[in-house]
């Protein structure tokens, strides 16, 4: 033991000392710790789910935490699939998904489920073609063909047809998709199923489907990162991720044959084309408006109908109300579409039903 004491202890003590010294030098630390210790005991809410609205949610939760230091909402963006599963297993206080839960999925939660649409956004096709300067237009045949693995070169005639006067490179197309169960995948593949028989009878729609010849990344960030790192890549991500990472997005052909670029207005236009039913579930697979961007979705917070812990319940309600109120103000900056007033009203009504 003598030997151990003489060597390990000084080293351990030095390391610990260095850490302590470093911490005490940094003024923010103890100060912040003291501030919180004077407040009441912290309430923590745990949520997992979609990566699609994660930047917005995490912005809400950090802002809320700044105003109410006693409330911590830990949101882990693992994908909608994980969100729904962990919500069903009661591993979290709330879930999040951009694929609304199906009746079957809701039946697995005995105390009942309340789905609250919290924001909306567009799914865009971002690409990495460094030599291409003009914006790319993709017809319905083109983007279905790319993800079916039928169109493999960027200078394919199907793509060229919609882009007259543009020199398309002779490089291979590398589709990038999601490796995890994803609401974004669900929205994208539901749209593809709605516009293409070949897709419907082939890969189909779902939170994770079999894409031929694609590489897969984890979450919206993972897909965005892969597109960014891979010349010749194209993949589907939430609008905000493409904007924030400065990646070009293709203008897509909508139902009325117009090529529409994703932005706030074309997204709002698409949302306007559907009426939310009483249960607040709606799938916008192919909006009809002439100026609608074709792939748009609401995204939902999954709450239990009944909570045992009254403090958790009160906190959750307060946080959601913050998101529906002041929180909507962050939407345009981060690339989301603020909820229409009637949806916010409906949300508040549903929120009152949680006890």
């Amino acid at each position: 033991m003598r030997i151990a004491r003489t060597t390990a202890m000084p080293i351990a003590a030095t390391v610990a000392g260095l850490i302590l010294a470093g911490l005490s030098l940094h003024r923010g630390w103890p100060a912040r710790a003291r501030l919180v210790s004077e407040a009441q005991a912290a309430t923590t809410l745990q949520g997992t789910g979609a990566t699609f609205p994660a930047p917005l949610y995490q912005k809400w939760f950090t802002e809320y935490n700044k105003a109410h230091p006693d409330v911590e909402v830990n949101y882990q963006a693992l994908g909608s699939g994980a969100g729904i599963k962990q919500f069903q297993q009661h591993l979290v206080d709330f879930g999040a998904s951009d694929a609304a839960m199906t009746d079957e999925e809701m039946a697995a939660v005995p105390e009942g489920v309340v789905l609250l649409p919290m924001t909306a956004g567009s799914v865009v096709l971002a690409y990495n073609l460094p030599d291409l300067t003009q914006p790319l237009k993709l017809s319905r045949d083109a983007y279905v063909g790319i993800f079916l693995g039928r169109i493999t070169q960027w200078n394919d005639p199907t793509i060229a047809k919609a882009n007259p006067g543009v020199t398309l490179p002779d490089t291979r197309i590398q589709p990038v998709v999601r490796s995890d169960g994803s609401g974004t995948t669900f929205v994208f593949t539901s749209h593809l199923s709605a516009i293409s028989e070949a897709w419907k009878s082939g890969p189909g729609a779902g939170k994770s489907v079999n894409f031929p010849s694609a590489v897969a990344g984890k979450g919206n960030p993972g897909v965005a990162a892969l597109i960014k790192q891979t010349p010749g890549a194209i993949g589907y991500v939430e609008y905000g991720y493409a904007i924030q990472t400065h990646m070009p997005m293709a203008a897509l052909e909508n139902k009325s044959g117009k090529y529409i670029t994703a932005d706030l207005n074309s997204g709002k236009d698409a949302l306007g084309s559907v009426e939310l039913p009483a249960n607040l579930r709606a799938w916008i697979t192919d909006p009809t408006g002439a100026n609608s961007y074709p792939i748009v979705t609401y995204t939902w917070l999954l709450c239990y109908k009944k909570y045992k812990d009254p403090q958790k319940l009160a906190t959750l309600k307060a946080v959601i109300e913050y998101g529906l109120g002041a929180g909507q103000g962050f939407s345009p900056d981060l690339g989301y579409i603020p909820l229409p007033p009637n949806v916010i009203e409906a949300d508040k009504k549903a929120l009152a039903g949680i006890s």
Partner: protein
Amino acid sequence: MTPARAEAVREIFRPGGPADERTLLSTGSDISQAPSAGEVAADRFFRAATMAVAWFTVFLVFWVVLSIGRQALPSLRTYGVAFLTDTVWDANRNAFGILPAIVGTLYSSILGLVIGTIFGLAIAIFLSEKFLATGLDACLAFLGLADNAWFASLPSRLENLLRITIELLAAIPSVVYGLWGIFIVIPIIRPPANWLHAHLGWIPFFGTSLSGPGLLPASIVLAIMVLPTISAISRDALVAVPPKLREAAFGMGATRWEAILAIFLPTAATGIFGAVILGFGRALGETMALAMLAGNANVISWSLFSPANTLAALLANHFPEAGKPEVAALMYAALVLLAITLIVNIVGTLILQRAEAGLKGLR
């Protein structure tokens, strides 16, 4: 026995201490004392406790296998052997098959192993056959420094440094290698890989272009991770080659490499093979490097540049979100992975034991 007397025992036998029974006896005539009833009871309890813990570690293995096996049972019943040969993983249709993941696991591991073995063996030979020492000795003699004590010890110190550096490779966490792979390996190998595809695309190994993640970058990182295992164990095997074989080979006038290739390597072959198998076991179970670099695509391809999937990466990606039937399928996949790694590791350990036994006869 009092702590003071225990201290006396340790003091007497301390390395460099007065290890002499006479000293022990002279420390006191009442040194020996029968244990009290309380001490005997404590002894019984402690022994029983260690035995319980020993049993528990054995039980732990069964517990792991059972907890995975029990949850895999439903899918074992539903999918049977077809699970191993189906190629589709589609949670929507409850269609689960892990052939691409099995192929990807084996392909990436074997590829990583081939690269890792070439380099690992080179290092083992380099370190065990005193290449560095002879080379440096020649340099020192040339510079007239061979008699200088500090310089004379330099070769062995450098050799030690090299060995520790290689061991350092094993200490770096796999997630750090994954990070490095994404930002260094992929950009470096992309141009040559795509040149190979463009010019030699008719060879199945170069059948696709490398867009980013894929088998080759994953295998390169795997190779780095198995290299320390292979080089360390192979070096031990080569060092264990009996000196008389060594002397006999050189005495017959063999060049250094004739001796290595014809005598040393065959003698150490079993040990080296065991090292390779253990490296294989490590590569098979590696998760992070593959999940980060292989591309997570459920395809089977001969191409080194194609994205792929592995059993461990499949688990890492799908487990957090899987519904009931998919969890059962994943547990089945986990069971397959467990079986493969268990077999490989047991075979590797047995081979190493045999290598040791085989060399005993030669000594």
